[in-house]
């Protein structure tokens, strides 16, 4: 007897979560299976819609306007601009991200010292916008090699930002090891534990503010690496802001990304509130069915447990999330063995320039307008399977800065299409 649901979503990243949310909100009985930590922890926590055209034009001010010129193979063309807007409205509804007040892209500084175009940003990053002309002080932590504030500041100046920016480096109050993980810093601030500063005990937030205060000249905002709390980021920023007399923001960083993890937590909570079942920790390894998938099998402690559903959403990620796999012979989709178009010769998978036009970046399944994967002949592979997110091909999210938006839009489209089939 299989575990049953109306819609089964495979994958717990941005696309899978959005898909399950859209489905649950339509009142369907939905179950989400997530195997491992999603790639959200690798991502900056920013949600990009479209920053550059496939030809590299940009940064784009209006992502929606540019979407209409994308090639037909692009997932945005598949779902249409209206669906992208609806999907973003859902995202805005369940998160407290900023940027939804306008169609215009924002430019945000990141730990690499550049600015990048994005459409939605966490509140923690809002005071850091590069189009805000208030002067900024960036504060780095001496033992945090991932964010070198003086270097980032001089790089931002070279990028021509419309404000003065300086970088300073401090030793974080408290006796953390030089190789402490970002979560250690976050926890210290979350709990506001007492730390010893020159022999006196002080709460961590106060100690941090006092360490930065003498460094502030006339800047109205101060940016830190994204370590300001995991559980209570708003309270931490408010406390620092009050004690320093400036706006406080976080600069998005690489993995492990606290803003990415916070977003993941928020979306899982929203999905839970919407009444979906969520199971994590075990992989889907195979399926049973022909043109109609009857059930998939989840590997648990060596046994294969069947999960039946009427509709399936494949949101297992791309090359990074292992939803698309490859070996020396070719590229494949491991669960349903959906067709993944790719050049036969693996030496045609990449460009010789590090930031060249890499075919591998576009590897993924092709779908029709209802998000159903297509075979090599262009036929629908299964009548009740849809694909969403990075498992899709036909776009280069890294170059376009379109990853978050495509995942949300296609996840939404796959979920709503699945519900339509049910009714």
């Amino acid at each position, binding site marked *: 007897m299989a575990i049953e649901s109306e819609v089964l979503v495979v994958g717990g990243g941005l696309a899978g979560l959005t898909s399950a949310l859209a489905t649950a909100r339509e009142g369907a009985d939905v179950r989400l299976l997530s195997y491992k930590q999603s790639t959200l922890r690798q991502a900056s926590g920013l949600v990009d819609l479209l920053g550059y055209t496939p030809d590299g034009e940009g940064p784009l001010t209006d992502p929606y306007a540019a979407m209409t010129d994308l090639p037909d193979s692009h997932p945005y063309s598949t779902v249409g601009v209206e669906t992208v807007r609806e999907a973003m409205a859902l995202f805005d509804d369940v998160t407290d991200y*900023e940027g939804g007040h306008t169609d215009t892209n924002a430019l945000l500084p990141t730990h690499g010292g550049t600015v990048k175009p994005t459409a939605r940003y966490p509140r923690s990053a809002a005071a850091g916008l590069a189009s805000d002309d208030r002067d900024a002080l960036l504060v780095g932590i001496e033992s945090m090699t991932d964010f070198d504030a003086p270097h980032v500041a001089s790089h931002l100046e070279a990028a021509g930002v419309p404000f003065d920016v300086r970088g300073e480096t401090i030793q974080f109050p408290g006796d953390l090891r030089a190789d402490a993980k970002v979560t250690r810093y976050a926890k210290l601030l979350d709990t506001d534990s007492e730390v010893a500063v020159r022999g006196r005990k002080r709460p961590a937030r106060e100690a941090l503010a006092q360490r930065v205060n003498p460094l502030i000249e006339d800047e109205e905002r101060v940016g830190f690496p994204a370590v300001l709390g995991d559980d209570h980021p708003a309270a931490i920023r408010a406390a620092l802001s009050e004690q320093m007399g400036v706006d406080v923001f976080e600069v998005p960083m690489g993995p492990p990304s606290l803003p990415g993890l916070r977003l993941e937590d928020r979306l899982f909570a929203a999905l839970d509130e919407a009444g979906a079942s969520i199971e994590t920790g075990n992989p889907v390894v195979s399926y049973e069915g022909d043109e109609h998938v009857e059930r998939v099998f989840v590997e648990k402690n060596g046994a294969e447990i069947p999960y039946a559903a009427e509709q399936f959403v494949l949101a297992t990620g791309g090359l990074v999330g292992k939803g698309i796999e490859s070996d020396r012979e070719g590229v494949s989709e491991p669960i349903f063995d959906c067709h993944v178009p790719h050049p036969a010769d693996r030496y045609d998978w990449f460009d010789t320039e590090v930031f060249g036009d890499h075919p591998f970046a576009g590897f993924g399944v092709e779908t029709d307008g209802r998000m159903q994967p297509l075979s090599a002949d262009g036929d629908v592979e299964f009548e009740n399977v849809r694909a969403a997110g990075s498992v899709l091909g036909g776009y280069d999210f890294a170059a376009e800065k379109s990853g978050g938006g495509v995942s949300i839009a296609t996840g939404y489209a796959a979920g709503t299409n699945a519900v339509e089939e049910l009714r």
Partner: protein
Amino acid sequence: MGSTPHIAVIGGGSTGVGIARDLAMRGLDVTLVEQGNLTHGTTGRMHGLLHSGGRYAVSDQASATECIEENRVLRDIASHCVEMTGGMFVKRPEDSEEYFQEKLSGCEECGIPAKVVSREEARSMEPHLAKDIEKAIVVPDGAIDPFRLVVANAGSAQEHGARIETHSKVTDLLVEGGEVVGLEVEHTSGPGTRVHGKEGGKEEIRADYVVNATGAWAGRIGDMAGVDIAVRPSKGVMTIMNVRQVDTVINRCRPKGDADIVVPHETTAILGTTDEEVEDPEDYPEEQWEVDLMIETLSELVPMLEEARTIRSFWGVRPLYEPPDVGSTDPTDITRDFFLLDHDERDDLPGMTSIVGGKFTTYRMMGEQISDHVCGKFGIDADCRTAEEPLPGSEDFSVLRDYMDEFGLRSPIGRRSVERLGSRADEVLKTDSPNPTVCECEGVTRAEIQDAIGQSGSDLNAVRIRTRASMGNCQGGICCHRMASELHPEYEEGVVRRAWDELLQERWKGQRHALWGQQLSQAMLNYALHATTQNRDHDPAGGDPVDFAAFDTGVDHGDAAGAANVAADGGRNGD
């Protein structure tokens, strides 16, 4: 001629620095020029094998005897560059028994300690060997880090007064009155100061004698003075695995062939190699079939290689040479011996000698012979001391240390750091500031990066070969920008950015040959980190100006300090 002869050495590989160190220790004035970074040519592109000589024990006993002798010397003078892994020659059922016996007796004849082990013994030493191997001969092969060795030699030469100029390409030989009297070099000042005595521009370096130690490039130097040096460059591929599948050097026990060796090297294992003659040492095809051949053939010895993850492949060019009257057609038949070509005796062109052929393992011996030859020219009677004097980093040093107490580093990072730095560990790692890890894959700390920057300036690839930072599993995905930040503020942002771009491109170059499976996944992640998060593919610094005013300026929440509506914390996800 001054009282002390001035010798110009061309080539910053193992042979060149070995000669520079030897001559400098004998009290001569030495200037060494290298067109790229140290090890830029063949030395930086070898499989890291410290030969026992077993490999040549049947085909070339003279080379084998030299190898075992130098193997013992290097263990002594370059202990911080050597890992004595031991090696085996493994026989599969289809390999010839007669050859196995020849190998064994060859080793004995050349004084190479060798003993036969059974299948069970071999597999208890190396459990991942194929189940159906028959037996093996155990020999004292080792692994050696060519980068570290060359840097240590160059450092020692400098301590003895030599001038080392990298990124300095010889554009002409100065010939006056039918004699070589020096060089003309072009200093290519790349990003910032590398190890430049002189930045940019051309320089004439006059010398009493010139030594051409450019290996596969020797013919080009010869052409500048109209002498013919028929080096026959032969390329070979090396494929790097992401872990050490073996801890012993594994050789296939059969006559020469492609894909017959696995060398454990630091955190990786290196598969080698092929032997294909090429026209041009700088421009030759790097082909897929070579990589596939390594994996498929060596899987016969170590089956797990078939499914294992490779992190990159690279190619090197052997500077093979044979006297004009031999005429081998197959590069595998060309001797691995080295030749000292005195152009006075050979071409009536006094003032220069070229050294060609040879092997990395015997670099010091080659240096000694050519230094004897040069000293003979000037009637100088000075003994060679390079076989007794340890290299910087290998003086009296033991890795049995308590890193936590000494350097505040976690044990694995401390151990790796001390293995790399040898006796220099104290001066490098003892700092008053926090010493966080910059490259997590290889356990390279800030102090070690800063030490390398102190040696080599703003060239991050030079920092890389000194420290191994960015050479691990993630191939720089996580640490390239951190390495760049370590250059700042000593170097200005624009210089840092160019050095960073150079490093990103260099790391990409070799990964392209490993793009499938987990490494393709890693490459996509790196691409996402560098392009999506850091936007380095559209970096506005150095690009077109951005109209910042046309983008979102945010919503004024009035949540600046002191505002009354500071949100109470929204609990678990109050953000």
